[in-house]
């Protein structure tokens, strides 16, 4: 595992079947996925341990992450399959401005697949712990 932004958070797991562009793909005020082409469209990322391969699309995703943290609609934590500087950048800027930590980690393929069937997870600086399925 690689920790990109160290922190501690827990929440229900939202596992995305495809990468997500936060810019144009997530509503900042509600935290809902609004990209109608996305398999998880209509679900809220707020407070979730959000599991996705990586972001896609515009670099403005960094701004959207920072705005969501400011608006308290951000995920509790982000678990990635590959390094994603665009998500990290939004999280780091918001940590600087608002003191709010959005932990971001990269996990290996086994762990990533296990999260597909988990309901609840905890993200720590040293690892990810699945708490569900209940």
């Amino acid at each position, binding site marked *: 595992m690689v920790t*990109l*932004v160290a922190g501690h958070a827990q929440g229900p797991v939202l596992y995305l079947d495809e990468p997500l562009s936060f810019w*144009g793909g997530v509503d*900042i005020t509600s935290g809902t996925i609004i990209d109608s082409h996305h398999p998880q469209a209509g679900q809220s990322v707020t407070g979730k341990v959000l599991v996705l391969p990586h972001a*896609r*699309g*515009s*670099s*403005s995703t*960094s*701004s*959207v992450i*920072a*705005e969501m*943290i*400011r608006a308290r609609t951000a995920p509790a934590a982000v678990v990635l399959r590959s*390094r*994603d*500087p*665009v998500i*990290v*950048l*939004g999280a*780091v*800027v*918001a940590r*600087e*401005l608002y003191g709010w930590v959005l932990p*971001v980690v990269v996990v290996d393929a086994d762990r990533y697949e296990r999260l597909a069937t988990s309901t609840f997870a905890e993200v720590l600086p040293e690892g990810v712990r699945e708490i569900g399925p209940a």
Partner: protein
Amino acid sequence: MALQLTADDQSMLAGEEGEGVALAMRVLVATAEAMGAERLLDITSAHVDGCLYHGPAGLDFARALVTGGARVKVPTSLNVASLDLLHPELVRLDRATADDARELMDAYVALGCRPTWTCAPYQLPERPRLGEQVAWGESNAIVFANSVLGARTERYGDFLDICAAVTGRAPAVGLHLDAGRRPTLVVRADELSADMAANEALYPLLGHVLGQIADTRVAAITGLPATTDEDHLKALGAAAASSGAVAMFHAVGITPEAPRFSELAGMETVTVTREMIEEARRELGAGGEDRVDAVSVGTPHYSVHQLERLAELLGGRRCAIPLYVNTSRSVLDAFGEAEALASCGARIVTDTCTYITPILDHGVEVVMTDSAKWAYYAPANLGVRVVFASIADCVESAVAGRAVTTW
């Protein structure tokens, strides 16, 4: 290997150049680590797209840099913003958002950036040379800098671009390094070559297809005609950076670094067919509508040559529907014939663009454009339907007040 910082980097991080520079360095270091960089490198210029207003956090960040006494260390141009300062009556933002958008623009100028307000910084008088390390934001500018100028930038964007500018440093990864600029894919446009020489609308369509094929990969394109110019490559790159995440391509026989990578045998190869171009046209709404309520051109910002061409095609005729022309204040100055375009009914937009801020007249539902990038983003951003067409068809449609499609 972990990120190694120089003594100068460490001193910036420790706040010896002020809290604003330290903030920028913290953000730069965290992101460089996330990218897997082993060191930072010096840059000679920056192009910043953080001046477009997305919300309060972007403004809070700019304010923190200004309050912390940060100033850019390298010549830094600014991308489009949310307002047209030369034609303020064109933009219909609510008062509170417009005030915040203006404060954001002022903050970036206070950091020492030049108020260029253009997505086409490569059309400004000074531009980076072959091999120069730079940090540019804005996807179309990034692909142009890497591919056409041979300058070296990664995909920078909000926050990171200004952090690179005020520290003069960037992560030594990806397209900054020789290895990252090597093509891993060949895209053959040979079958289209004769058509492309006769119809420039094929360039953005080829770009749209390239983005879908390559996504983040560097492709070597073969078969572009010898008449290919910078406006053509601009349209191709902007389209490829919209439908995909293309940050660099090589056009064999045309772009400066293509000769370094002449060994293409054995590489994955995709041949672009006329059918693929037709499919791209359909995806971008070409020929789908008889009705057109407005025409928008100049995404990326039109060059002097493109404005001259537009004036020539209009030939003094009056437009029946709004014709929006996006360009930069610098190009508009050099062009010098804005009055002639305006007298035909063209609405010249500077400093911003018609797809990112409310400019189009109320009630506009169908818009024709010669830009694949505009056609890609406008439906979601503005809720309009789009019709992609050549610039000649755009002009005829604006004059006729309905869709005129010759191809």
